[in-house]
């Protein structure tokens, strides 16, 4: 990094000269880079609020999200209904709060399953030669050729909506990038001297995978998981917006936007509020992912 004048270079100098006795901590450095810039912190705060809402939602929501009240339909925002009500009198704010639970639940479940499968297949592909390697990688290429929304739409549409099918559809769409990142990282790390040293010492292949290679894939996969939760929430909103997502009356943000669209002229808050919620949450996960990548990726130190 000759000639760069970013914050990384002076940081390294001070660690060496000014505080020689303190042990250099990679964790502390990562944390300080992450919290050193505003956007990742904003992202973290948004995610924190989002999680609080999903946990304490039932106590925070002023009304039952699926309870109809036809006498008070399409009410404008007021002190009794802070965000108004929809065409059958359901409280928008309460539906928004319960919709957060569905979003986060789907995001976490989909990313957990797809990352586990993706890491497994990625390591298998990186560790095998010949037919198995090519089969896994070519199917990955094939899946990557689909725009993720079209793949999810295809599977969810063919299976029919519902929570379980939406999770399956989104999971399939998220596996391919994890396979590619894991196998790519694993194959490049395998060329390093310390892996060769371990091999020379007679460490078994499986052990090398688990103790040398997997920990080094941790950073890119963590970044991908963080951003993946945001991408999943966005894709789920797109699916339910198109009408192939979670079945009503469960409140989901995408469908709320679509339902409210018909009343855009008279009650714009019906479709604006859930859309804003999707955007804020996805923004939060993306910014946190960005921050994590900058903090964890040594190559970017000092550049950004």
């Amino acid at each position, binding site marked *: *990094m*000759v*000639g*760069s004048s*970013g914050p990384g270079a002076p940081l390294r100098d001070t660690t060496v000269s000014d505080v020689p006795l303190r042990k250099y901590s990679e964790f502390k450095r990562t944390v300080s880079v992450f919290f050193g810039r505003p*956007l990742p912190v904003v992202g973290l705060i948004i995610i924190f609020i989002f999680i609080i809402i999903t946990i304490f939602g039932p106590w925070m929501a002023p009304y039952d999200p699926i309870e109809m009240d036809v006498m008070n339909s399409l009410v404008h925002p007021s002190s009794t209904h802070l965000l108004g009500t929809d065409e059958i009198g359901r409280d928008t704010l309460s539906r928004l709060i319960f919709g957060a639970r569905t979003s986060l639940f789907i995001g976490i479940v989909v990313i957990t399953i797809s990352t586990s499968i993706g890491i497994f297949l990625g390591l298998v592909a990186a560790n095998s030669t010949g037919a198995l390697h090519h089969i896994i990688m*070519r*199917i990955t*290429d*094939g*899946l990557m*050729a*689909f*725009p*993720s*929304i*079209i793949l999810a*739409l*295809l*599977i969810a*549409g*063919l*299976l*029919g909506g519902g929570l379980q099918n939406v999770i399956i559809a989104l999971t399939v769409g998220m596996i391919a990038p994890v396979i590619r990142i894991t196998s790519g990282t694993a194959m490049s790390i395998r060329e390093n001297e310390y892996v060769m040293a371990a091999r020379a010492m007679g460490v078994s292949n499986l052990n090398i995978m688990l103790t040398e290679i997997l920990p080094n894939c941790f950073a890119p996969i963590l970044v991908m998981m963080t951003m993946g939760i*945001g991408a999943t929430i*966005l894709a789920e*909103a*797109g699916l339910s*917006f*198109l*009408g*192939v997502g979670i079945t009503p009356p469960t409140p989901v943000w*995408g469908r709320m*936007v*679509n339902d409210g*669209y018909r009343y*855009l*002229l008279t009650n*714009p808050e019906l*479709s*604006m509020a859930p*859309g*804003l919620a*999707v*955007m804020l949450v*996805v*923004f939060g996960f*993306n*910014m946190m992912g960005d921050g994590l990548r900058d903090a964890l990726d040594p190559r970017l130190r000092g*550049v*950004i």
Partner: protein
Amino acid sequence: MVGYIIRRVFMGLIVIIIVTILVFLLIRLLPGDPLLMYLTQQQFRDTLYDPAQLAELQARFGLDVPLPMQYINWIADMFRGDFGESINLQKPVSKLIGERMPVTLHLSIIGAIFATVVGIGFGIICALRRGTWLDTVLTFLANIGITIPSFWAAILLIYLFGLKLGWLPIAGYTSPFDDFWLNTRQIILPIFCLSLFGLASNARLTRSCMLEVVAQDYIRTAWAKGLKERVIVLRHTIKNGLIPLIANMGFLVAGLFGGSVIIETLFNIPGVGRLLTTALLGQDYMIVQASTLMMVALITFANIAVDISYGWLDPRIRYD
């Protein structure tokens, strides 16, 4: 270079073959029998489980042979230009796609140009004015742009420019050959919403690539030689900094086709995206498999073109 091109085209063809298998298997192996649906839709409810009728239909759609044979027949039919017949619309699928693909391509091509020119422009401005308020504002907008749901952006713009200000129509599509001015007014909002993600990601990528190049030794050498700022920026920084942008073009094309599913439905535009959505909701499987395949094949061709131009611009790529 020739060897590289042959390798890439070969890889692309393999991807397309795998995609055809995936689409074929997805439609055949998932639950829900298209023929039973067809019978139901044809109002044969009382004879729903009549085996003779089912067998007759199976023979008509070529579903009475083993799965691998069905696949081969399907591919062979496609090479003859026969994509099957739509169950709901009672028309050949090739004709339906032939009518709608030009609309989607029209939107996608203008969207791609818009996202590339404006996105790269913003990225360059940010990199050259790094740390100023302009950089902060544009970077923030780009971060919003990559996270905003396209359907929500569309609804915001429809509300503002369509309903409140009344400047632009909120839905529909007229052929530019019939009424060019009306067509232009109709496609402004859809194209903006379609290209928003690509524009924002281009801007972010341009900014970071340019900043990486600015830190290189040869740029310092160029300054030390006393070159004019204009020459350093145009000839050395931008030219090298934009090479990774070529790789992003593949994602851009995929994003435009993927976005067309939502945007065409929302703006009521008769393109392939809306055709796919309505066919899926109406369980019109012939259309679903043909239109999915067409889109993914076009994306794969775009990726091959991207890879080849990338290898042409950056010789290091050719020898991987």
